[in-house]
């Protein structure tokens, strides 16, 4: 079998070059599909963009009409002897072509806000990042200690986890109105939504991770004379740190998914405000650019955290693989 190509060997690593190829393809393929839909007029393209209104009175250059409407109007124009309208096949306005979105990545940053009080894109993005940061930081500040204690002491677990288990089924956005009533209309309720969306899952996940620490390590430390808090601070916490770090990475991703809902609460703000505003102006290239930006920020922050994890927990074999 030497040299043969095994693409589908169960749980075997692929050679480096193939892994690179597939990684690139995983991004390239969706873009390719998007390009096909945008640049190949015979695929989809349900609209016609008018270039020359001809004799049709209500047509204007740049207008998008359905194909059927266009052919009906052309037929009518031919019958009544006026000049024929001209146009190109086009996609609906909500599907901009890749090159338009690509240029929007630049122009969205340089376009001045329509009104003085409104924010530039980078300000909106930064505002979103601070909301995520505070929501996630506050949740972790409370959630990590409670989770670790739940995973360590059965008494803490039984006191907290049943209620949390119930509470985590309540959708965070359901608390929006309540959060506004308590915390006002600005950043407070938004941070609260991120907090609610993250906290309850966090406690349960951290508690579970804590419980997964090998009991043999605790027994070994007992025979070495470790007691009470020494067990917690010298064995439990250092032992679970790499797994905790991995959990936090996953939870941070969840926090991002609550962002849009959170930012719609009270006065719309941040990247969500930008997206809804641009959609209203029908600048869908900007909308796409903004959505993709959220993805890029998420992916980049996760990459940075994973590198940080490898550096911090060089002793942990599992960390090297993630």
């Amino acid at each position: 079998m030497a040299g043969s190509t095994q693409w589908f060997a169960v749980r075997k690593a692929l050679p480096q070059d193939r892994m690179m190829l597939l990684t690139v393809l995983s991004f390239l393929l969706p873009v390719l599909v998007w390009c096909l839909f945008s640049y190949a007029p015979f695929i989809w393209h349900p609209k016609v963009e008018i270039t020359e209104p001809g004799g049709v009175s209500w047509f204007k250059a740049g207008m998008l009409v359905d194909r059927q409407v266009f052919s009906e109007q052309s037929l009518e124009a031919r019958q009544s002897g006026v000049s024929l309208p001209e146009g190109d096949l086009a996609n609906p306005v909500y599907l901009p072509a890749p090159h338009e979105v690509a240029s929007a990545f630049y122009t969205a940053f340089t376009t001045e806000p329509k009104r003085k009080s409104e924010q530039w894109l980078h300000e909106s993005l930064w505002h979103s990042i601070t909301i995520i940061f505070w929501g996630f930081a506050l949740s972790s500040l409370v959630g990590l200690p409670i989770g670790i204690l739940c995973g360590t002491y059965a008494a803490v677990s039984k006191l907290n986890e049943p209620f949390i288990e119930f509470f985590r089924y309540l959708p965070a956005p359901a608390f929006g109105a309540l959060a506004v009533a308590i915390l006002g209309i600005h950043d407070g309720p938004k941070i609260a939504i991120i907090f609610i969306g993250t906290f309850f899952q966090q406690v349960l996940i951290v508690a579970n991770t804590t419980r997964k620490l090998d009991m043999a390590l605790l027994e070994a430390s007992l025979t070495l004379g470790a007691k009470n808090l020494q067990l917690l601070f010298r064995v439990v916490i250092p032992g679970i740190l790499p797994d905790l770090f991995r959990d936090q990475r996953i939870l941070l991703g969840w926090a991002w998914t609550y962002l849009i809902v959170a930012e719609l609460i009270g006065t719309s703000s941040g990247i969500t405000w930008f997206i809804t505003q641009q959609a209203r102006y029908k600048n869908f290239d900007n909308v796409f650019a903004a959505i993709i930006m959220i993805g890029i920020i998420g992916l980049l922050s996760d990459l940075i955290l994973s590198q940080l994890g490898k550096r911090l927990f060089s002793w942990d074999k599992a960390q090297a693989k993630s």
Partner: protein
Amino acid sequence: MSTLDLPSYLEQSNKVKDRFDKLKARETILEVKGLGKTFDSAQGTVTALKDINFKTHRREFVCVIGPSGCGKSTLIRTLAGLESPSSGEVLLDGKPVFEPGPDRGMVFQGYTLFPWLTVKRNVMFGLEMSGHSRSTAEGEAMDWIGLVGLDKFADAYPSQLSGGMKQRVAIARALANKPRILLMDEPFGALDAQTRSKMQANLLEIWRNIDITVLFITHDLDEAIYLADRILVLKAHPGEVNELIEVSVPRPRHFDQAISPEFLATKKRLEELIHPPLDDNDDEPGLSMIRMVPVGDEVENGDSSVDNSAMTAEVD
């Protein structure tokens, strides 16, 4: 059962008797009195240990051996304080034991080094727990690491070590607390044969050089005879003391003794105790029911007297 026609070397000479009299005259380190342990399970109460009595003396090396399911591990975990006895008691220097403590060092079969600490910090762990300053702990830890020959690996993490090295660190880590007794639960069970015999020699060397009493669990007869002064043989269902064998093989021990008459006599006795003639309470039901079914072509093995066709006929 073929019997080697050996003189009974279990009949001790006066010299050997003398040696064990001296050993038993030493102070008692650990005493187990009427120890019993039961577990409640879905099938009812299971008796893991029943009325275990024995003593270990200062600087003695005791091995505990027995068939699987005889409660060897339960016994050592109870001695360590990780399980509490259902009846009877464990006395260390005459005082009852209730919980785990640094006075009973333990080496587990699985690797239990703290993966986030270097070798040095692992060995320092117990010393730091008992309030030694970092610098004192570090100095002492390095001495112990030297004793197990791992000076060069003091700053390595456990994941960088081989299985044998990990267990050497575990021994150093347990000894650094200066325990009264070292409890070892099949510590070399997961190692390959070659590493295991090196570890055995290494352990005996350490034991000779420091004042330590060792209680060592194993299921390997040769290992028990090679290491022990006395071997506590347990039997299963429930775990009870079957016999306490005094190993007459002289010290210092070396592997060549494995064919000495004393060694073989002890081994034969152990075999008889641990593998009694099969009865209905067999641990591996079904093994005796395996039939010989020839598969594939017959191979000329040079023994023409063996008639393979007979077996085929029997199955048919």
